[in-house]
């Protein structure tokens, strides 16, 4: 079979070896056949699903199917499309249209007997627009059913209109009944303005006596409707001119246009609204209330009354009142002819009334029998029915059951036909119209024309008067007069007058006050008497004047005798010497050394400033402040002491002492006289000589100053200052403020001690002692006059002392001094001083050079460094210990990890195993690559 074509062609042409043999269907069929199978399966599945998903078909019949189209019109439930109309057909008798609707499968179980269908169309009415969406989308069928699944029903009768109870609303359906007419379908029930229900279409009763309509009150408002509830129409407005006057009534604009029904529970109690109950609709609120009053509680009883009077104004619905309380109403009026009973054939009017025994107060259970019994009793006592005015204006009448005295005996006619009859009395009707007519007649009779004529005449005359020229001018003149008066009043003089008067009065007041005061003073001080005495004293004083003048003249004469010329010469010499001295001093000062002094001083001052700015000095004020505080404390103590002193009348005692002193001074004139004598002696002293000596002394001093040694003093001083500066800048001096501070602390302590001391003093009644001392002083002062006397004696003695000799001695002393100064040793003194100063300087320099202070400072610094270092070292010690502990812990855990079965060991073993396997894998890989190098490229 695998021969070359040439061979086969040559050997057996035409017998090409072709694979042959009938193969079975499964051999020939290939996988390609799956495609049509899948397509078929999908198609069948889709078809089956389509069929299976199809919901059931229901048929709904409508009388009018306007707008419904097959395949387009939808069935909606809660506004969601749940089905589509598939076909429209007619019922066999062609009376209805049947819409076949395919509904959704999952909703089909709910479409059972309770399902309702109606067609929603756009509707525009006075109550609003509904179904507007259907304008565009076309009408649709609305379905409504409850949520109870049940067996599917396939044929339904469609509703003509939407049911009263719309989707999602629950409520109670009842029947509304009226004799006249009912508002149109859709009229709402409005309870306090809220729509709580709706009325359906009205239907005329079968017997044609009235209309009824289905109505619905929604939940939860059904609780407001009971058997005590009355409904009345509030559509439009009502205008009534009845017994109670005129009334115009409408509830709201909406109800005015679209109508409405409202209701109210007029009484309490009553059983709740039940399904299918029947209620009357009243035309207005009043009738509704009246109906309730009459017919509600219990059984109403019908009675009749025959009135012989004119009953115009009495109508059905008129009230029947008992003692002002409405107990019933007139239900009808009829004529009656009963010649048997009344004895003639006149037409009488019979009114039938309905009376509610409950309203009279006979109890809820009271029925006809009780009421009639009651009425019988009362009628026997004289109660009658009579007509009376219900309203003055409208002429309406009502029936009043009233107790009338002295009426003819009558009784309730129970057997009367058709109803029990109540006897009547004459009407008590006020003829309002006749009265009104009389009033009008009287008004008519009034002489109105004549009155009008008189008024017209009067007005004419008044007009003429007012129109006259004189009267016209009067206002202008009045205006002029008023203007003039105003001008006067507004002039400046008149304006200023009050001020001037005021000032005048003030002045007068001041003057009188002063006068009063002066007189008082004069009176008090008896000035006149004193003046006389003073003048007398002056006279006496003038008598002593001549003596005084004489004394002055004597003094002047003495003064003239002083040898002024000599004295002035001496003074001149003295001045010359002083001048020379000054010149020397000037030269000294002008020397370079002295010039350099300020610089040195400045250096010292700088050092001092450094010292001053040092922290210790800065701290000084604080110390000083504290010291001052202490001192203040002390002063406070002192104050206290002084206060004590004051208390003990020390001042008074002092005063006494001073008084004594005063007494002593009284003897002073004598002392003065003595002193004057002393002076006179002094005057006689040999002043000339003394001044000469002084002059000599000055000359010597001048020579001394001119000496070289003295000249060298400034240099030395300068050096000392330099040394001092060095000293000042030295550390010791720097430390001085600290010392000072300490000193101040000490001082503070001292002041504290002082304060304490003072306190002690206080406590020990020192003040008392002081007072005693003062007392002693006072006593002593009392002895002062005597003392003064002695002093005077002393002065007199002094006066007798040979002053001349004293001055001689003084002169000699000066001379000695001069000699002393003049001698060699004195002259050498400056040099020695110099040397001493030099030594001081040397010491200071040595101190500076020796670096004692520096050394001490350095030593202290080193010590401090050492201390710091130790401190640091000690600070690191705890950390070191902590580190050591941590290391120890780690070492502990590490060591414990090496224990058998510990996680570390396990992991290590695992790691080693993995490494082993990795090595094996690498080995394998290497072997593979070795065997099959191209696997690297092919990836195998």
């Amino acid at each position: 079979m695998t021969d070359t074509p040439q061979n086969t062609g040559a050997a057996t042409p035409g017998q090409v070896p072709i694979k042959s043999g009938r193969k079975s269907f499964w051999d020939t069929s290939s996988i390609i056949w799956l495609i049509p199978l899948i397509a078929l399966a999908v198609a069948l599945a889709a078809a089956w699903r389509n069929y299976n998903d199809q919901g059931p078909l229901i048929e709904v019949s409508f009388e009018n199917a306007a707008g419904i189209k097959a395949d387009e019109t939808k069935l909606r439930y809660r506004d969601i499309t749940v089905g589509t109309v598939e076909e429209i057909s007619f019922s066999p008798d062609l009376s209805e249209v049947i819409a076949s609707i395919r509904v959704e499968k999952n909703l089909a179980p709910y479409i059972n007997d309770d399902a309702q269908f109606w067609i929603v169309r756009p509707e525009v009415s006075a109550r609003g627009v509904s179904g507007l969406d259907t304008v565009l989308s076309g009408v649709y069928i609305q379905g409504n059913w409850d949520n109870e699944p049940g067996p599917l029903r396939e044929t339904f009768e469609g509703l003509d209109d939407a049911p009263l109870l719309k989707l999602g609303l629950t409520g109670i359906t009842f029947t509304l009944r009226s004799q006249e007419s009912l508002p149109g379908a859709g009229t709402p029930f409005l309870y306090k303005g809220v729509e709580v229900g709706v009325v359906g279409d009205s239907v005329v009763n079968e017997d044609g006596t009235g209309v009824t309509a289905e109505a619905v009150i929604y939940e939860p408002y059904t609780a407001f409707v009971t058997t005590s509830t009355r409904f009345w129409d509030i559509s439009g407005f009502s205008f009534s001119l009845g017994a109670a006057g005129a009334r115009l009534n409408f509830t709201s604009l909406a109800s005015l246009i679209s109508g409405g029904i409202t209701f109210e529970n007029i009484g309490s109690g009553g059983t709740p609204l039940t399904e299918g109950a029947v209620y009357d609709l009243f035309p207005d609120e009043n009738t509704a209330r009246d109906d309730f009053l009459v017919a509600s509680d219990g059984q109403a009883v019908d009675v009749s009354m025959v009135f012989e009077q004119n009953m115009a104004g009495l109508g059905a619905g008129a009230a029947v009142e008992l003692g002002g309380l409405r107990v019933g109403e007139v239900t009808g009026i009829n004529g009656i002819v009963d010649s048997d009973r009344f004895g003639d054939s006149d037409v009488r009017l019979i009114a039938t009334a309905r009376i509610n025994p409950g309203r009279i107060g006979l109890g809820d259970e009271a029925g006809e029998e009780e009421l009639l019994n009651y009425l019988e009793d009362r009628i026997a006592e004289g109660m009658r029915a009579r007509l009376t005015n219900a309203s003055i204006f409208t002429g309406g009448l009502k029936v009043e059951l009233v107790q009338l005295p002295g009426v003819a005996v009558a009784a309730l006619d129970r057997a009367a036909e058709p109803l029990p009859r109540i006897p009547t009395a004459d009407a008590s009707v006020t003829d309002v119209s006749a009265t009104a007519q009389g009033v009008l007649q009287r008004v008519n009779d009034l002489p109105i024309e004549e009155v009008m004529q008189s008024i017209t005449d009067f007005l004419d005359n008044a007009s003429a008067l007012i129109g006259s020229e004189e009267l016209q001018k009067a206002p202008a003149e009045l205006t002029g007069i008023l203007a003039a008066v105003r001008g006067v009043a507004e002039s400046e003089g008149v304006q200023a007058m009050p001020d001037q008067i005021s000032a005048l009065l003030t002045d007068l007041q001041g003057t009188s006050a002063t006068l009063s005061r002066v007189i008082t003073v004069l009176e008090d001080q008896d000035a006149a008497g004193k003046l006389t005495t003073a003048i007398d004293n002056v006279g006496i004083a003038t008598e002593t004047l001549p003596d005084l003048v004489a004394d002055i003249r004597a003094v002047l004469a003495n003064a003239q005798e002083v040898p002024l010329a000599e004295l002035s010469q001496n003074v001149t010499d003295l001045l010359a010497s002083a001048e020379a001295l000054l010149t020397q001093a000037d030269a000294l000062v002008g020397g370079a050394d002295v010039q350099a002094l300020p610089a040195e001083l400045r250096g010292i001052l700088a050092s001092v400033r450094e010292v001053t700015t040092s922290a210790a000095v800065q701290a000084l004020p604080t110390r000083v402040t504290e010291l001052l505080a202490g001192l203040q404390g002390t002063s406070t103590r002192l104050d206290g002491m002084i206060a004590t002193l004051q208390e003990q009348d020390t001042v008074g005692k002092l005063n006494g002492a001073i008084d004594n002193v005063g007494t002593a001074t009284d003897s002073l004139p004598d002392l003065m006289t003595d002193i004057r004598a002393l002076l006179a002696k002094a005057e006689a002293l040999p002043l000339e000589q003394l001044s000469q000596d002084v002059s000599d002394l000055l000359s010597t001093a001048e020579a001394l100053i001119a000496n070289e040694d003295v000249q060298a003093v400034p240099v030395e001083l300068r050096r000392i200052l330099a040394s001092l500066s060095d000293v000042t800048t030295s550390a010791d001096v720097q430390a001085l403020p600290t010392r000072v501070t300490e000193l101040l602390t000490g001082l503070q302590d001292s002041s504290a001690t002082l304060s304490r001391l003072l306190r002690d003093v206080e406590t020990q009644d020192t003040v008392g002692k002081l007072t005693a001392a003062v007392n002693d002083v006072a006593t002593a002062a009392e002895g002062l006059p005597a003392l003064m006397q002695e002093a005077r004696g002393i002065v007199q003695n002094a006066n007798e002392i040979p002053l001349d000799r004293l001055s001689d001695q003084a002169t000699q002393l000066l001379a000695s001094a001069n000699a002393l100064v003049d001698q060699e040793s004195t002259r050498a003194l400056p040099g020695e001083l110099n040397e001493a100063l030099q030594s001081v300087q040397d010491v200071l320099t040595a101190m500076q050079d020796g670096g004692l202070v520096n050394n001490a400072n350095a030593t202290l610094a080193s010590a401090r460094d050492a201390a710091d270092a130790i401190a640091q070292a000690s600070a690191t010690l705890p950390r070191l210990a902590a580190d050591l502990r941590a290391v120890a812990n780690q070492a502990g855990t590490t060591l414990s990890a090496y224990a058998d079965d510990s996680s570390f060991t396990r992991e290590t073993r695992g790691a080693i195993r993995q490494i082993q396997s990795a090595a094996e894998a690498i080995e394998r890989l290497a072997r593979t690559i070795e065997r099959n190098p191209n696997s690297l490229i092919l990836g195998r």
Partner: protein
Amino acid sequence: MVGMEITGTGSGSGLTAREAGLVACRRCARVWPMGTESCGRCGSPLQSRDTASLSRVWALWLAGVICYIPANTNPMLITQTLLSNSKSTIVGGAVDLIHHGSIGVAIIILIASVLIPVGKFLAIAYLAISVRRGSGISAARRHHLFEVVEFIGRWSMIDVFVVAILSSLVQLSVVASIHPGSAALTFALSVIFTMLSAQAFDTRLFWDTTDQRNETT
């Protein structure tokens, strides 16, 4: 000898490669001696007659027919306007067009969507049967018919294209919109299956006479 063989077995309808003991490569058209497994030039497998060809043809043909049924029953086009919502099938749409007077367009649609697909089904079925049962029509004519089928088959897609273009152009939100119906998908599938079916046909089978086929089978 080869020439003699050729003249000997040609008998009217010419000599086939198979009769000449040759097999042609269907990819690069190189002729190899019978029995060669794969083409030495392009490597594609060589086969003198594709014996599974007919079964593939039938399978794809059947799938196409199955798809063609829903393509005609389901709506092809869903048109939504503000007021209405309409679905139209292929034939229904064409009938509507005729009612509206657009007979030309309706004819085009009918030809493209009904006549051509149905014709294709029939032609392929006939050709496949003729290979088995033989036919009165010569092999050359049948081959010609096959070429026509293959050429014209793609024009059936015109309907799908129209739907695609319409539904992408007419999307005016609420006012009007056109969506493709489920038939568009099934119709496209039907056309694709028939085209694959035609391609699966091994046209060399036409040339084998009934006698030879009977011999070989």
